[in-house]
């Protein structure tokens, strides 16, 4: 049995891992680092799957960092190997190859795994039911595309809708089934859902809300049609299940590492076990808006969580005060950016949020900002998303909007709309004042 030992071991080879690696190397060139992944590929971005399948980028552009990344960072990639258990006492990760990898500090960045709801007729042997989360999924779907005409997608969340867009643009007949009464319900408000539904409708995608799949009709290992909860039957050549991603925490189940829905970490990204950190989709992380931990499975949060873990591993202090829900999405020509809480009309009324909004349906432009205690708690911009980060900055810095609230919906909102004291404080290193 082969034994190895590194100063830092990372399980996972994606956003969280790369955030950790790059941050360590920006401060230290000597520590030994190993990165373990059961996926055999060079670090790639799963968020690019829709762009790849749409033919907008080639396979090489799926790689998140150049091909000499591991070499340049001077790290040891252990790819195509699965971590099967962790011996926290002796600080060792055991791999399915029977190798053992010793660590001084460990980062768990194992990400998520797709959730598959119970459906009569479903089992893992089906050869035409796919997830939409890995490069292997993308390559399988790519293979089946030329011989397919109809697809059923279960789930109208961000991933399901991105899949629907790609496939309808590829000329397929696309049916999307969603249990909630509108698309993207956890992420956006009612008005935004309507704009998105309309865009899909205009492009010929059928969306069935308030329904789910009860049963799969199959011929051997092949799904031929699905039956919805209202009895309707839809034929398909293949199916994509995109109802959500769950934290991948099997590795630490029944270990001293505390897990709720995801691995619990503090603001330093430390788990309940010394020298063991977690970041990314596998973890429950701090949300500065809710002032509490929750699942925030998004690329920027994963990268930044890995970065904060790295700084603390090196003995410096840093806290994860940066993360909240934040999505930049687009469907056809509809661009959407949201951040913070998704304050729907219903929630606003029940929980006492003030909503500022501006809606121009004919231009497909919508801006909605939710305020509480004079702070921005959530925003959704549709159509005009320029400079949205300025608002996210105001949210992060907890700047009360009292003095400029009537400016918040201006399309050209910027720093000159803020009172001078706030403006120059926020930009103090970016401008030169006091010359006249």
């Amino acid at each position, binding site marked *: 049995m082969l034994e190895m030992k590194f100063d830092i071991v990372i399980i996972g080879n994606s956003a969280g891992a790369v955030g950790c690696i790059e941050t360590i190397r920006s401060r230290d060139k000597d520590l030994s680092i190993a990165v373990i992944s059961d996926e055999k590929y060079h670090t790639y971005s799963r*968020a690019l799957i829709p762009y790849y399948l749409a033919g907008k980028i080639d396979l090489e552009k799926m790689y998140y960092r150049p091909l000499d990344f591991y070499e340049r960072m001077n790290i040891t990639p252990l790819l195509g190997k699965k971590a099967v258990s962790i011996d926290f006492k002796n600080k060792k990760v055991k791999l399915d190859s029977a190798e053992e990898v010793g660590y001084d500090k460990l980062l768990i960045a194992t990400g998520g795994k797709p959730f598959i709801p119970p459906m009569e007729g479903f089992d893992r042997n089906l050869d035409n039911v796919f997830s939409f989360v890995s490069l292997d999924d993308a390559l399988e779907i790519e293979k089946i595309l030329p011989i397919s005409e109809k697809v059923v997608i279960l789930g109208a969340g961000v991933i399901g809708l991105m899949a629907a867009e790609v496939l309808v643009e590829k000329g397929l007949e696309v049916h999307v089934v969603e249990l909630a009464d509108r698309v993207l319900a956890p992420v956006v408000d009612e008005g935004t859902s309507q704009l998105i539904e309309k865009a899909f409708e205009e492009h010929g995608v059928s969306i069935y809300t308030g329904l789910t799949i009860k049963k799969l009709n199959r011929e051997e290992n092949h799904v031929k049609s699905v039956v919805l909860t209202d009895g309707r039957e839809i034929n398909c050549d293949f199916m994509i299940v995109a109802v959500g991603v769950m934290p991948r925490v099997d590795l630490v189940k029944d270990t001293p590492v505390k897990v709720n829905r995801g691995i619990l970490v503090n603001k330093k990204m430390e788990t309940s076990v010394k020298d063991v950190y977690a970041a990314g989709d596998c973890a429950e992380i701090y949300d500065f808006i809710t002032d509490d931990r929750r699942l925030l499975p998004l690329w920027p949060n994963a990268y930044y969580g890995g970065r904060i873990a790295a700084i603390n591993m090196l003995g410096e202090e840093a806290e994860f005060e940066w993360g909240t829900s934040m999505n*930049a999405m687009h469907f056809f020509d509809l661009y959407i950016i949201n951040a913070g809480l998704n304050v729907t009309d219903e929630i606003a009324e029940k929980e006492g949020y003030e909503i500022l909004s501006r809606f121009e349906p004919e231009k497909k432009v919508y801006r909605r900002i939710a305020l509480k205690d004079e702070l921005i708690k959530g925003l959704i911009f549709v159509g005009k998303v320029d400079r949205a980060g300025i608002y996210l900055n105001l949210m992060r810095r907890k700047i009360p909007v009292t003095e400029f609230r009537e400016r918040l919906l201006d399309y050209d909102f910027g720093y*000159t709309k803020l009172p001078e004291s706030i403006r120059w404080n926020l930009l103090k290193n970016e401008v030169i004042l006091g*010359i006249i």
Partner: protein
Amino acid sequence: MPKVVAKPEVCMGCHLCEVWCVVAHSNSKDIVKAFKYEKTPHPRIIVDENLPEVFAIQCRHCEEPDCVFACISGALYKDESGRVVHDESKCVGCLSCVMACPHGGIVIDLDNRKIVKCDLCEEIGFPVCVKMCPNEALIYEEG
């Protein structure tokens, strides 16, 4: 970190920095051709204006670049000189950087479904906005 810094007290909002930014990033490098015969001009410097308050701002090439942390494609990265670089060939136009940039320094180019941002006029060798500002309201800090 190299960056262009504004002096708001002497900016009069003439927008010439935007004009010359477009020229500097055009194919022809000719002011008339750039505006009249090339694709839609997208200045990478933004005159943030609420008169009489006005100043110009562009990518700050941040020490802690939120856009780089948010970029899903690897198109944005920090190079050895401290610049935040945008590799257009890798950009998929997801606009995660627009969501993340605290300065509003990322410009959306909808025609190409990508973003553009200040590159400190890498091709020319010196930021043209600084050179052409009639009021000397912009200065280049080489960092």
